């Protein structure tokens, strides 16, 4: 190895040695930096411990010499911790740019300690080491941002999945009659879930009638209409007749202009009307005041 090649590697090793030797001091300073201080509010010791873990990770990365590699194994141990820290900052309304700045702000206190290690901080070796530290800290910043972003994506995806399931309950209204109140956007993924839940319930409840109430669906375009028709057709194959209720006047007009023909589907204005329809077809005696009849002559 020529001296030329050795220099940067040697600087990285020197930074590693520095991070290990000055671990305690660095952690003490970082614990007071906004990134850690604002997250670990209960105990300063926790902030110090978190800072030490980051210093150890950086030392490991420096040892591997891959200062600019965000996939360096050394970050593995702190990735989750940094992600949680960034997420905690984000929850308090911190923008990603601000979090990035707070990570960047960790460099100055560490650089100050590093500079103090050299009798002449202007000497070339000192400059090389400071540069190595700067690279290392720059990469750390990217790691935090990447971790924070992917944590956010996971979170959104999780919430989306929960929403998918939470908003498509199948309700048993009567022996042989089930209902699904559809709420929100019916994109392809949700329509699929709705259809599966409904068909499962048709089998489980031995349903003869399934009411699809779309009062809570804001937009009925050709795709949503197509999904409704497919669901109705599939339920029919399972031996259940579907009734679509809750088509609001504005949506009815729009569907007609769009050119969608729902003629093959039984529709009723309200969920209660649909229930009465199903009960009558099942020859259930309806006596007393029936909610669906209210408001009608």
């Amino acid at each position: 190895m020529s001296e030329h090649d050795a220099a940067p590697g040697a600087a990285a090793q020197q930074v590693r040695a520095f991070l290990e030797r000055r671990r305690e001091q660095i952690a003490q300073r970082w614990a007071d930096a906004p990134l850690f201080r604002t997250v670990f509010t209960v105990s300063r010791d926790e902030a110090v411990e978190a800072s030490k873990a980051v210093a150890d990770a950086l030392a490991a990365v420096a040892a591997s010499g891959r200062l600019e590699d965000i996939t360096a194994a050394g970050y593995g141990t702190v990735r989750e911790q940094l992600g949680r820290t960034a997420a905690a900052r984000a929850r308090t309304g911190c923008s990603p740019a601000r979090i990035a700045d707070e990570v960047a702000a960790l460099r100055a206190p560490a650089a100050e300690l590093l500079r103090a290690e050299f009798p002449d901080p202007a000497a070339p070796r000192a400059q090389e080491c400071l540069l190595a530290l700067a690279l290392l800290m720059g990469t750390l910043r990217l790691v935090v941002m990447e971790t924070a972003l992917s944590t956010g994506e996971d979170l959104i995806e999780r919430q989306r999945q929960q929403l998918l399931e939470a908003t498509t309950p199948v309700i048993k209204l009567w022996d042989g009659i089930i209902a699904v109140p559809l709420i929100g956007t019916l994109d392809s993924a949700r329509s699929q879930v709705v259809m599966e839940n409904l068909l499962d319930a048709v089998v489980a409840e031995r349903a003869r009638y399934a009411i699809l109430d779309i009062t809570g669906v804001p937009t009925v375009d050709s795709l949503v209409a197509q999904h409704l028709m497919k669901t109705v057709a599939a339920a029919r194959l399972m031996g259940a007749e579907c009734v679509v209720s809750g088509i609001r006047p504005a949506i009815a007009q729009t569907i007609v202009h769009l050119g969608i023909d729902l003629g093959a589907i039984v529709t009723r204005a309200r969920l209660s009307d649909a229930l009465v329809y199903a009960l009558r077809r099942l020859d259930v005696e309806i006596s007393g005041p029936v909610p669906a009849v209210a408001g009608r002559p």
Partner: protein
Amino acid sequence: MQTSPGTAATILPIGSDADLAWARHQVRQAAAALGFGLVQQTKLITAASELARNTLVHGGGGHLEITPVAHGKARGLRLSFVDTGPGIRDLELAMTDGYTTGGGLGLGLSGARRLVHEFRVDTRPGGGTTVTVVMWLAGMPVPRPGTG
């Protein structure tokens, strides 16, 4: 037709199902802000939903531009759906009720045209597709193309 003074265009990406939901939401907001009634809002949002999905599914993604417009006293909303996809080879065929190359109902383009006041398609095979629609506020004089 002029764009309304002091009201800038909003540009929204169309690259996912989530973008479609957001685009509908933004069109609803813009229409409500201009004072569109519920039926008109619903028609415009539904047309937007069809055209934005075409941009996504057939055009491979693109963007939506929402611009408040004025013509004399009339106020309206212009929506442009822009993609750089394959374009539409036979526009007349594509505008036919029930024509689809993708297993849909084939009502998106033709249905959207019936829901709005003005409708224009600029497309070239290999050169992308831009569909522009305008909805004028009800109760206002609707400008005729070619006047003013």
